[in-house]
């Protein structure tokens, strides 16, 4: 089998290597209630995309290093100066000035609690998380917004204090590298690859 597609950027251009698409033949769909007449076909499709994180790239790199980065508007002319954002916003949603990056790992460890949650038994295709998925939305004191993530250890409840954990070993460089556990969870209870 030929190389599975991967990419890097050199001189501000994508350099791709390997296969980015895989071909398979369509097959007929027939109506068994109507003498097997042709109704349509299957359409196989398997392809790889390239995706840039742009100005949010530090956030995703940070997760792999055990850091939760947020941002703050420091524009003195902004009506909402000082507002802290998590999710990380590249630009202030009000004045559109470039936000200042903040390491809010300590805030998250000490001042995060569950605003709401949902335990979900189902997932869509391509899901990588264990089911049931415990979605949680985390409110931080002093932060304007409410981050969506998932709880790996403990039972979700509104108001419960939660602590972030990070997939520093074999990270996926996606939002799933960040997860949470209820306060009091021990290091040996964390899922594979995750640490505080």
């Amino acid at each position: 089998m030929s190389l599975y597609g991967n990419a890097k950027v050199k001189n501000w251009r994508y350099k791709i290597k390997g296969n980015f698409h895989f071909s398979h033949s369509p097959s007929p769909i027939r109506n068994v209630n109507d003498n097997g007449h042709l109704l349509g076909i299957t359409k196989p499709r398997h392809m790889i995309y390239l995706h840039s994180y742009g100005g949010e790239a530090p956030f995703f790199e940070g997760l792999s290093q055990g850091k939760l980065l947020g941002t703050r508007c420091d524009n003195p002319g902004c009506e909402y100066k000082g507002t802290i954002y998590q999710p990380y916003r590249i630009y202030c949603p009000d004045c559109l000035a470039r936000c200042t990056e903040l390491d809010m790992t300590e805030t998250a460890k000490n001042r995060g609690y569950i605003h709401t949650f949902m335990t979900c038994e189902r997932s869509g295709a391509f899901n990588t998380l264990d089911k049931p998925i415990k979605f949680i939305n985390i409110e931080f004191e002093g932060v304007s917004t409410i981050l969506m993530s998932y709880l790996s250890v403990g039972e979700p409840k509104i108001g419960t204090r939660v602590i972030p954990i990070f997939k520093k070993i074999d990270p996926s460089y996606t939002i799933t590298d960040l997860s949470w556990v209820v306060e009091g969870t021990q290091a040996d209870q964390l899922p594979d690859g995750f640490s505080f």
Partner: protein
Amino acid sequence: MIRFTENQLKTPQFMRPVYLVTAGQSKFDRAIPERKTEELCVDALTMAAELVNLTPAELKGYIHSCYYGHFADHFGDQLLGEAVIHDRLGLDPLGNVGIKTGGATGGSTLWEAAKTVASGYSDCVLAMGWERMDEVPTDEGNFLISCAADKDWESPLGHIYTGYYAVMAQRYWQVFGKEEDSFRKTLAEISVKHHGYARMNPFAQSPMKITVEDVLNSPVVAYPLRALDCCLMSVGAACAIIADEKTAMEIARNSDIKPLRIWVTAGSHTLRPADRRPMDIPLLPNETPDLYEDLENRFPGAGRYPGFSAFLGARMCAYYGYRMAGVNDPCEDLDVIELHDAFTISDIQTYEDIGIRPYGQGRTYVESGDCYHTNPKTGQPGKLPSNLSGGLIGCMHAVGATGIMQTFEIANHIWGIWEKIHGDENRWKAFRREKPADWTNLQVNGAKRGLAISHAGVGSHVTCTILMDPDHLLKQDSSF
């Protein structure tokens, strides 16, 4: 606390009166493997022509520009599907554009259509919406739907949109529902009602005669929501013809159809619920600030508005729409409504967002019996019947068509043709569906004014369509 400017909160205005002349729709079903999308769109347009006793060619002769609502290109694996439909409907050389705003796509299509006529650009336009969700298995369908969430921050979390949505339901359930069994039963009653009304609708995909216990015993999807609390995935098309007064009267001249005044407004809120920031509650005409002074005391946790329990987009489209059309109190001023019941709980949330009940009291709209065609408590007509089509839970959610289906349903009541459209034996047969022996006419007698809410996913886009018999307006057209 974020604030909005006076410019942002200005009451929208049309430059001239706008009319819904006619409309039509196809059968709705989970899968329609024997027919292409264009065939369903032809069904819808042909029906619209028949209602005003014109041939499709005659009706097409009035259309000047076209608005196509189709949300998910990737479901059908056809980019620019709008151009395919436009071609198959034979509408060259007219300008046309595709509209996509998630679950609100149908409502947004009407919004664009109405503004085009209001501005004077066109005297008559086509708004056509469709969706085809049967070309992938359900789990791939869930993946494709999850692509409507933020792809870096949310979609990788399980690729299941229900999860992103249901956290808001959970918050409402705990703060406003107080996790009471009685509240859970009220949610179940909504599903019983909508599947039950779907039994009277030949277009509907999920007619069911069920009980509250059946809903409470259906499989958990995302607690407290169960399978029967959730809307459908559908295939189907719906269309509407929108025109100025002169053209509307001309199109309808050989029929019993009386063109209806139409207003459409839209609101929005963050695609990522995570980005919601606190604000004061924007008040509707029937609300005063003191109404919510002690909301946090009555419902601990309700103090942060809209938080995760209210939909600002829904509130804002009503905020704009009620002022535009002169609606003061929806329960007093309107006769019939269709809401976007994606889930039973979001149906209740919408009652509050659009002022049918104040925040925190949505459940009483169901518990009072006001939302029924016939109030089960009194045997009298319901005060403001909702979702007599069966809604998204009982009739369909063919995304791009949904907001247009709802509007057509409301128009049926105001035109007084609900029985003719829904009771026709031939239509039941043509759709290979059996008309129930206890079929009941759900016509709201004497309906003059109605409303439809079309809502996207986590509340990112919401539209409010208001229809009125032009002889029963609430506000004079002083500005035209």
